[in-house]
């Protein structure tokens, strides 16, 4: 029985080669996209899912507010840990730890110790950690983590440090951290198997932190906050996070003084464990986070591509119904029931989907490119049992989606009429034709929408990258020395002097971060205008005298910073701050004193301190110390064709100087314009995805269109012949054949424009600075779609129109 269905299906597919190819191509693209997107989505949503009690575990995070700005921080002030354990009800477990990075050395007998640099996944923690996040112990136990100088390693890390040793043999060995903290290995655990961001590999006993450079992070100050200080709690069953948040607020009031401070505020929140992997206010532990919005966007793309492929199948199958009517009639008179016929047609859809699925697995690596921006680095592309299950489910869903309606239509034919080929006339007024037209319109609405979206996102990115941000960004690169180098100040001075001797450098500035960066240091500043205090959160840039010139910042009034720090601190404020202070003319601000002994010596034109997503904020450039020992080196290069030729040499010279002064350190530099482009990486990713989605939807839709036009011209062969005999020109016939389809594309345009306008308008609203979208964008995208549709149609129409009428009439 099944054999019979499959055999018939295979023969039918082979007989309609062209339509089968169109269907398989369209479906396999959709399936391939679905496959990859499933992998991505499945990967990202599986994080922390295998943890015990995952729904009851929360991370305690902090939202800081200064004046009007909020700063989310994934850490908590350390004293909260102790206070929470003692005083907060509704918690049945908690763990705190400090995330650090560092280096380790393994002493060896009779040989130099082996060094490991840039270690990650290190934490200081105690026994509590493993109560909340249980591990499988291969040797030892968590007990010693409550005492000084102990460490627990994962199996894999133990193998790195002590190759060839079994867990039991590694016990009791020593690991020396940062050359000064010797720890004894007193536990080996199995590596975490499930997907998790808490993939720590070395657990140094908590009391040891007092002997490390991070000791002040474990202080008792309620006002000190560091994202390295992590605190997790497990709520008792039935306890709502809000109840615990309230108790935490009470604790803060009781122990800290910032509750009385109206400007500075810290509020603790509970973040669900399962949210840590996703982008939001709070960072993961320096790990990649996935954006839920992007994942949902990907899902939508997958659904669109799949449904477009299915639509081709529905359209082409119902269009061919007339040709199959006879067969259906015969089968019915031979006793075939409707259900048996439906099964037969579904087998055809199934077979086609199956072939497409096989092809899609082959297509997947190629299509991976389309989604490369969204694919996590360690995403496995292996055909796991899960994946097979997903593919099987997909095959069934797609089979039903594309096969069920045509099966219903075809099996409905009355046998007597069907055999006389009167089952339906091919007038465009029949219900199936209407459905076909609607589905084709739907396809082109999607394609058209994607085209408009791509152009608009593209022009917004163009706007971002080309808008005058108020500073120079070409031919400038910057770098900074290692944070923790010894004698940093002296060596920075040395490097600076050395750089001044390199001829290829046009300008050099050594100070704070570039004008626009993610690095923001701000202070609360108060100015009294004689009547009232004006409090503002002001960004501080500590600069040297070259800074403004190097970055081309414009001075509106007053003077630049002078090299020598003087008291009161000199400040060049930006126009926005001057306006906040109530000065309508920049000159008015000169000489004004801002509390904390700051004097305004100049006013600069506004420039963008971060990406164009955000508005310009009050800013002051000073020559004071930022409190950071390390400084950024900004280097301007000659921006002429001849100058550009020398860049390589200059950069090599800078690198040499850096390596001489900081031996063993990697020299990493960034061109300023590249780092500006990085601000818009999310938009760039979106743009790439949109371009692919557009290309693929157009391709699938045009395939379907081609199938339909081939079918309709075949039906009208005789009509075309007669018209030609009567003297119609090729152009007239082409336009006759294309007219109906062009109408559909036009209707699709009319529907797509408002939808696309609304969606892109909403998207653009999230930017403070945005480009204006003219009507021509819509006109252009409509025209583009029309041209593509016409080209597709012309493949068939021109051939049909230029066929010799004598031939086509004779075959009738």
């Amino acid at each position, binding site marked *: *029985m099944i054999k*019979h269905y499959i*055999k*018939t299906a295979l*023969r*039918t597919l082979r*007989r309609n080669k062209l339509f089968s190819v169109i269907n398989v191509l369209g479906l396999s693209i959709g399936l391939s996209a679905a496959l990859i997107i499933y992998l991505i989505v499945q990967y990202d949503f599986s994080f922390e899912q295998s943890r015990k009690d995952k729904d009851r575990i929360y991370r305690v995070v902090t939202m800081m507010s200064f004046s009007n700005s909020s700063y989310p921080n994934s850490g908590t002030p350390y004293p909260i840990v102790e206070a929470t354990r003692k005083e907060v009800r509704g918690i049945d477990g908690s763990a705190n730890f400090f995330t650090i990075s560092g280096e380790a050395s393994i002493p060896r007998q009779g040989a130099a110790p082996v060094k490991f640099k840039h270690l990650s996944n290190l934490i200081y923690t105690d026994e509590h950690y493993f109560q909340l996040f249980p591990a499988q112990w291969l040797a030892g136990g968590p007990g010693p983590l409550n005492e000084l100088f102990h460490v627990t390693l994962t199996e894999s890390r133990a193998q790195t440090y002590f190759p060839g040793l079994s867990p039991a043999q590694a016990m009791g060995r020593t690991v020396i951290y940062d050359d000064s903290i010797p720890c004894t290995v007193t536990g080996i655990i199995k590596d975490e198997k499930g997907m998790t961001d808490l993939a720590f590999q070395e657990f140094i006993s908590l009391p040891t932190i007092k002997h490390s450079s991070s000791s002040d992070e474990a202080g008792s100050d309620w006002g000190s906050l560091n994202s390295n200080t992590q605190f997790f709690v497990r709520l008792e069953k039935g306890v709502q996070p809000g109840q615990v948040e309230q108790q935490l607020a009470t604790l803060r009031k009781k122990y800290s003084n910032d509750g009385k401070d109206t400007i500075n505020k810290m509020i603790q929140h509970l973040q669900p464990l399962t949210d840590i992997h996703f982008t939001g206010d709070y960072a993961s532990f320096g790990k990649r986070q996935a954006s839920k919005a992007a994942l949902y966007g990907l899902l939508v793309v997958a659904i669109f591509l799949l449904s477009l492929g299915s639509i081709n199948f529905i359209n082409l199958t119902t269009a061919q119904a007339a040709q199959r009517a*006879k*067969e259906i*009639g*015969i*089968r*019915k*008179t*031979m*006793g*075939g*029931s409707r259900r*048996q016929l439906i099964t037969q047609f579904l087998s055809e859809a199934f077979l086609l989907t199956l072939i497409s699925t096989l092809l899609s697995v082959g297509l997947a690596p190629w299509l991976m490119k389309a989604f490369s921006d969204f694919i996590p680095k360690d995403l496995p592309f292996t055909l796991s049992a899960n994946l097979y299950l997903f593919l099987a489910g997909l095959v069934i869903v797609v089979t039903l989606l594309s096969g069920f309606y045509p099966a219903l239509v075809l099996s409905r034919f*009355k*046998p*007597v009429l069907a*055999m006389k080929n009167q089952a339906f006339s091919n007038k465009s007024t029949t219900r199936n034709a209407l459905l076909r037209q609607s589905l084709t319109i739907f396809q082109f609405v999607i394609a058209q929408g994607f085209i408009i979206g791509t152009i608009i996102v593209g022009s917004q990115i163009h706007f971002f990258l080309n808008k005058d941000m108020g500073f120079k960004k070409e031919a400038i690169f910057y770098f900074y020395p290692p944070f923790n180098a010894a004698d940093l100040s002296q060596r920075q001075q040395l490097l600076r002097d050395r750089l001044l001797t390199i001829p290829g450098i046009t300008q050099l500035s050594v100070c704070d971060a570039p004008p626009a960066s993610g690095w923001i240091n701000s202070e609360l500043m108060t100015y009294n205008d004689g009547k009232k205090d004006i409090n503002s959160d002001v960004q501080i840039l500590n600069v040297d005298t070259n800074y403004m010139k190097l970055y081309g910042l414009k001075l509106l009034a007053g003077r630049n910073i002078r090299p020598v720090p003087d008291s009161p601190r000199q400040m060049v404020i930006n126009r926005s701050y001057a306006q906040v202070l109530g000065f309508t003319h920049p000159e008015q601000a000169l000489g004004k004193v801002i509390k904390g002994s700051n004097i305004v010596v100049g006013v600069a034109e506004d420039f963008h301190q971060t990406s164009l997503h955000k508005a310009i904020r009050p800013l002051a450039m000073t020559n004071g110390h930022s409190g950071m020992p390390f400084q950024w080196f900004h280097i301007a290069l000659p921006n002429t064709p001849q100058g550009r030729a020398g860049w390589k040499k200059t950069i090599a010279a800078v690198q040499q100087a850096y390596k001489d002064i900081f031996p063993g350190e990697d020299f990493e530099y960034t061109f300023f314009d590249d780092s500006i482009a990085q601000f818009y990486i999310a938009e760039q990713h979106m743009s790439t995805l949109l371009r692919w989605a557009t290309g693929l939807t157009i391709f699938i839709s045009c395939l379907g269109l081609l199938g339909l036009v081939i079918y309709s011209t075949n039906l009208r062969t005789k009509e075309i012949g007669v018209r030609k005999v009567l003297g119609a020109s090729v152009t007239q016939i082409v336009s006759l054949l294309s007219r109906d389809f062009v109408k559909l594309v036009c209707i699709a345009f009319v529907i797509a424009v408002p939808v696309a306008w609304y969606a892109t308008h909403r998207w653009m609203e999230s930017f403070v600075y945005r480009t204006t979208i003219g009507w021509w964008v819509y006109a252009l995208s409509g025209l583009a779609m029309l041209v593509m549709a016409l080209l597709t149609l012309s493949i068939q129409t021109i051939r049909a129109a230029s066929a010799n009428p004598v031939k086509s009439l004779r075959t009738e």
Partner: protein
Amino acid sequence: MVGGKPNFILKDVHLHIKEGEFVSIMGPSGSGKSSLLNVIGMLDDASEGEYFFLDQPVHTLKEKQRSQLYKQYIGFVFQAYHLIDELTVYENIETPLIYQNIKGSERQAMVADILDRFQIVGKKDLFPTQLSGGQQQLVGIARALIGKPKLLLADEPTGNLNSRQGEEIMELFKQLNNEGVTIIQVTHSEKNAAYGSRIINLLDGRIENN
């Protein structure tokens, strides 16, 4: 329906056909011959009236029961043969058995049997388009008989054949009738009609003489 007035294709047809008869229906084009055959063959419903088949009231039966009855007792032969182009001779003949859910081994035996009887074993793997008209009709009849029907309905079975092929088919019908199969055929040809034991003349949807 034309102009809102009911326009009957068949009217006041009272007909009783006994088991084992060989009936020929004759009449000019449009007289309702095929429609009558379709109603008898349960491919079409009569809008009014009653139809009893083997004492079962077909007009009141549900689709499923009717289909059951149809599969079991009726075979159909068409003027245009109506073989399925995608299937071989063997598969065409086998198809009704598949729809009757007959097991594979049994199907094989039955098809082999009938191929043998019609002497078309050598053609079993050919597709319909590779056969002559007479051969195609032979396959069509074999297919109609594979389910061992009690009633064979033939709509101008020789209409597309030359006279020699036509005669062969008629001889075959005669033989089948002798073996006990009830046959109702629609025909234009007096000569073919004469093979039957009874002739019904239709005119404008009414039985002229019987």
